[in-house]
């Protein structure tokens, strides 16, 4: 199942060239670009691991692409990688743009729907990614 999170996720995956343009836009606005990765695809999983440090000081998209390629070498086959742009200016201090830049090679699993019966006839629903049945690092192999 194709995960749709962040911007552009209903579009075909961005090419590196398109990612470069997006990064150039972010840098022009003065946002710090970060790379994060995870293999837990649940939409409520906000705690992604960060690749290296936030890139506050880079001037050119080439630097971000360089890190992205390094990150893909390690996690490209097995993890999602997303790029987020953080606006540090006063009053905002928040992420302004975030989109997925890498998906694991085999992105099949999807989500299991779980029903739990509460008091009376009350039923609570929750979703759980099949992938998270396996331990971290072995989920998309």
């Amino acid at each position, binding site marked *: 199942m194709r995960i749709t999170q962040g911007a552009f996720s209903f579009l075909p995956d961005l090419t590196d060239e398109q990612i470069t343009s997006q990064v150039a836009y972010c840098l022009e606005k003065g946002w710090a670009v970060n790379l994060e990765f995870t293999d837990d695809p649940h939409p409520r999983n906000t705690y992604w691991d960060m690749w290296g440090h936030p890139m506050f000081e*880079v001037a050119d998209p*080439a*630097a971000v692409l*360089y890190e992205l390629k390094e990150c893909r070498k390690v996690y490209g086959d097995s993890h999602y990688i997303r790029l987020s742009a953080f606006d540090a200016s006063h009053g905002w201090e928040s992420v302004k743009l975030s989109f997925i830049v890498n998906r694991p090679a085999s992105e099949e699993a999807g989500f299991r729907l779980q029903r739990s019966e509460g008091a009376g006839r009350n039923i609570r629903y929750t979703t759980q990614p099949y992938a998270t049945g396996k331990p971290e690092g072995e989920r998309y192999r």
Partner: protein
Amino acid sequence: MTSAEPAAAAETAIDLRAEYESSGAKEVLEELERDLIGLEPVKKRIRETAALLLVERARGRLGLAHQTPTLHMSFTGNPGTGKTTVAMKMADLLHRLGYVRKGHLVTVTRDDLVGQYIGHTAPKTKEILKKAMGGVLFIDEAYYLYRPENERDYGQEAIEILLQVMENQRDDLVVILAGYADRMERFFESNPGFRSRIAHHIDFPDYSDDELFRIAGHILAEQNYGLTPAAEAALKDYIRERRKQPHFANARSIRNALDRARLRQANRLFESAEGPLDAAALSAIDEADIRASRVFRGGLAADRGGEGTGDGSGAS
């Protein structure tokens, strides 16, 4: 006002002259000519490089075979001969010709690239490289990166990363290495990888006495100071004397000397002035301000220990 450029309409012919003027390369080169005194061989090399880059760019636009030329450079020369200043101009020039995207200059030394413990060097070097991408990375005293006497020195690791990026990301980054000629030579001998990846070796000659005097005039004019005729003669003597003494650093020594002369001038005015001073008095450096220098009293050696020698780039 100007007529439409015919070359731009149909890309079958390119007017190099117009190209030269419109790219802004002309302004940078003229600025170089105007602001830098002496350094003729350096200016000549830069003009040649600019011409090559312009022709390469024109060839590219006409669809002829062209490749991004290797732009990494090495600047060798004694301290204070203008290496950093020229590097800054170079970054500007490359930016205007479209060979680097941003045209900023990141100046680093060994400390910024090499870490202090295992695993510290690679991230540090990469951080700097990322900061410099799209611009020019200027590595001052580059030979310190390589310390042959310590085989476990982390400098080697920084060199490897540097070489890899210099080779693979030639479009993203231009590296300029700088340092004293003889030590750079030894550095290149022990790191042949560097030599082959650097296309332009530019040597910065020492300034002559006359050039140093003109530089002094330039520095003072920028700060709205002037020399009295007697002070001019004193400064000429000073330059001749200073050159013979240790730690002579060309233009940097002169700048330091002028800073100290300004200090003495301020002191003199403060102590001797009676009544209001006009602008001319406030900006005139007199003979006494320069003659008071210890360079005239045998220099550094005469009163070692009296004053800290500090950066070693100038004696007072």
